[in-house]
């Protein structure tokens, strides 16, 4: 029986990839362990090894093809004594692909591999008050936006440097720092040992001396090793020194759940850091958020916790094509206008929220979506203005419910807009459990679009 060779999943979040190169031709014999092809994921170029031995009977996906789905048949392997006639149905012509998809890549982003780019639903109110009217827009992934933000600020200020695990020669564990080493050199793009506590403290010390470090945590889960330095040293020194010295530092990296990486690698720390006076906490959703807010964070004289999300890295958004696009920290954005209910979300929670708002519109419910952008300082005024208009509010986040950012928003809304509320405040959050590994349980542990819709139906009494 001929064996189907399938497109492999090569990272926890990979859904599709580019079949970059075939290293074996049709008719070549293949032994187990031979490298047969190279595949580009959004993170890296990976070699694919044969598991079985035989002869490569047919290549089904031509090299250069983008967006090949995981588990799609890419070739057929013939066993001993089999010939091409043994193949049935697999003989369709390879997808002619090599050049066309490449043209859709943003020309201004040479360093990043062509990543799978799920398009976010187009917001109903796309105008951002921070973007001048008439500005042309271009497509950018969150990954490119973050990299461009760092590169621009490093060009602008020689005191800015980036340090962390695998940020330099490896080009970033998630490719966020790709190309920075080439441009800025090893002095300013510093590979650290696996030493979160130590390099976080080192970064704070350098910041106290006036440098502006960007400390990348490979994920914020690992920043728990360093949380003493973040809170006791970075956040409190300005106050303890009577204003003499602070720490202009950005701690950034992916935060929250990725996909199927289990309890220790899947946690949202927004509420933890938002608890602490002396820190600012930023949690971007779109590529524009990522770029404008990271540039602002690097320029800010205070310690900033910049919470990214691995799943959003590959998402593509429209971003203003501006020389110097900086967003204000502490200001929320009305991502979509509406009249019946206020949905408040941030970071990856926005993906559920925007989809839910779209579906709700189809049901005749007009939801206004507030994208917080910053958790601390919290732009409660924007939330309140919306609630006073709609009389109903649902918050959406992936974090645990207990003492969550949602809890704080609910408190402030009841305190400051009690008389405007026509229904109890509801929140859609991650479940109150450590993140499970099994795919079905993981899905259950996270919020869903359906849960958001149900919550909206409850507060609008339309269930």
């Amino acid at each position, binding site marked *: 029986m001929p064996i189907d060779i399938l497109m492999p999943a090569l990272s926890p979040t990979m859904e599709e990839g580019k079949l970059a190169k075939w290293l074996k031709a049709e008719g070549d014999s293949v032994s187990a362990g031979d490298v047969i092809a190279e595949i580009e994921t959004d993170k890296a170029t990976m070699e694919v090894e044969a598991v079985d031995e035989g002869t490569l009977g047919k290549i089904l996906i031509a090299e250069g093809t983008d967006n090949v789905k995981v588990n799609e048949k890419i070739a057929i392997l013939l066993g001993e004594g089999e010939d091409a006639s043994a193949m049935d149905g697999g003989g369709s012509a390879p997808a002619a692909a090599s050049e066309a998809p490449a043209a859709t890549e943003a020309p201004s982003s040479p360093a990043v591999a062509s990543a799978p780019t799920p398009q976010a639903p187009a917001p109903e109110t796309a105008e951002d008050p921070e973007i001048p009217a008439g500005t042309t827009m271009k497509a950018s992934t969150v990954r490119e936006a973050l990299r461009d933000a760092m590169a621009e600020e490093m060009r602008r200020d020689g005191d800015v440097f980036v340090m962390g695990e695998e940020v330099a020669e490896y080009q970033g564990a998630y490719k966020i720092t790709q190309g920075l080493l080439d441009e800025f050199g090893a002095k300013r793009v510093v590979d650290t040992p696996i030493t979160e506590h*130590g390099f976080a403290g*080192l970064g704070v*010390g*350098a*910041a106290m*001396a006036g440098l502006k470090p960007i400390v990348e945590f490979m994920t914020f889960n690992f920043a728990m090793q360093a949380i003493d*330095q973040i809170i006791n040293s970075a956040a409190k*020194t300005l106050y303890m020194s*009577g204003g*003499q010295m602070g720490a202009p530092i950005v701690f950034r990296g992916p935060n929250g759940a990725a996909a199927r990486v289990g309890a220790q690698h899947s946690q949202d720390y927004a509420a933890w850091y938002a608890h602490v006076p002396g820190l600012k906490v930023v949690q971007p959703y779109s590529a524009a958020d990522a770029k404008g807010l990271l540039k602002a964070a690097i320029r800010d004289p205070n310690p900033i916790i910049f919470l990214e999300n691995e799943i959003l890295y590959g998402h593509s958004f429209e971003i203003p094509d501006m020389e110097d696009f900086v967003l204000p920290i502490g200001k929320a954005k009305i991502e979509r206008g509406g009249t019946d209910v206020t949905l408040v979300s941030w970071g990856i929670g926005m993906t559920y929220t925007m989809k839910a708002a779209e579906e709700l519109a189809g049901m005749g419910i007009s939801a206004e979506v507030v994208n917080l952008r910053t958790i601390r300082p919290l732009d409660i005024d924007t939330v309140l203005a919306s609630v006073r208009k709609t009389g109903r509010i649902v918050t959406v986040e992936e974090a645990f419910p207990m003492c969550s950012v949602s809890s704080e928003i609910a408190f402030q809304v009841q305190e400051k807009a009690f008389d405007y509320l026509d229904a109890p405040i509801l929140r859609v959050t991650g479940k109150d459990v450590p993140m499970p590994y099994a795919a079905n349980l993981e899905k259950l542990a996270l919020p869903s679009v359906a849960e958001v819709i149900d919550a909206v139906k409850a507060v609008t009494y339309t269930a």
Partner: protein
Amino acid sequence: MAAASKTTTAGAKSTSRSRSTAKKAEPAIAEFKKDEELHAYREMLLIRRFEEKAGQLYGMGLIGGFCHLYIGQEAVVVGMQMAKIEGDQMITAYRDHGHMLAMDLDPKGVMAELTGRRGGLSKGKGGSMHMFSKEKHFYGGHGIVGAQVSLGTGLGFANKYRENGNVCMTFFGDGASNQGQVYESFNMAELWKLPVIYVIENNKYGMGTSVERSSSMTDLSQRGASFNIPGEKVDGMDVRAVMAASKKALEWCRAGKGPYILEMVTYRYRGHSMSDPAKYRSKDEVQKMRTEHDPIEQVRKRLLDNKWATEDDLKAIDKEIRGRVAEAAEFAQSDPEPDASELYTDILL
């Protein structure tokens, strides 16, 4: 720092050695000239008298919280201060009053911080354990054991980044030497050749636990061995030995050779903090240190033996210093507490 510029030859005996011999060699004792002896005497006496007064004010309820006195360890910080040049930083943990006085900070500002008054170095918002002076390159004053070691390594990183030729003297105790981040910092400092002197002030006890009961390897000068960081054990009760070793270590760092460890063998006469009765050691042990190794008495004896000062001269110095300390204590009691509006300032810039 009047004396520092006049001591350029003091450390000349300590020639550069190869790394392996540096570990074993007895550090040289700097020959002090008259003005250096007098300077060291004054500086150490100021710390001693200041700390005695702080203990007194604590007893009167004027200083709150934790208060860790430096009495007995004065030679360490004074000897290092005499070896450094303008721009070299110091950073330490919470036993920090002596460092600030040695770095020429006004005793009034230090004492007023202890009493939580608006004229304190941190406007009364930091307290005994949290004081800073950007102007004098003193970076605190940190309350978490070991945290200052990573921070000091970062100050060294900034020196190297800016190529300013300065060195960060990072102080920590024998207790902190068992913290994990110390070794994370050692590794990065040697890997990147950062100009940092790790000064281990071994006063024999981490709170109430002796070095022997807390450390599997008690030669703390060799704690950098697995990172290839040279280290020396120094008589931290002899200000001349401290200065000589510091000069050598500073030269090493300034030459771009990376970090250096100095284990200053010293002793604190008082308990860990004001609330520690120090029952884990005998009175005899303390008394022996005070009578045989006191850092100030050593200098006093040399000044008299060399006829560089008379008893009357020294009494006059003591009187002058008591006057300065009394003035500081007076200020720290009369200065008002911070205005209530200060509660919400200095949180963010």
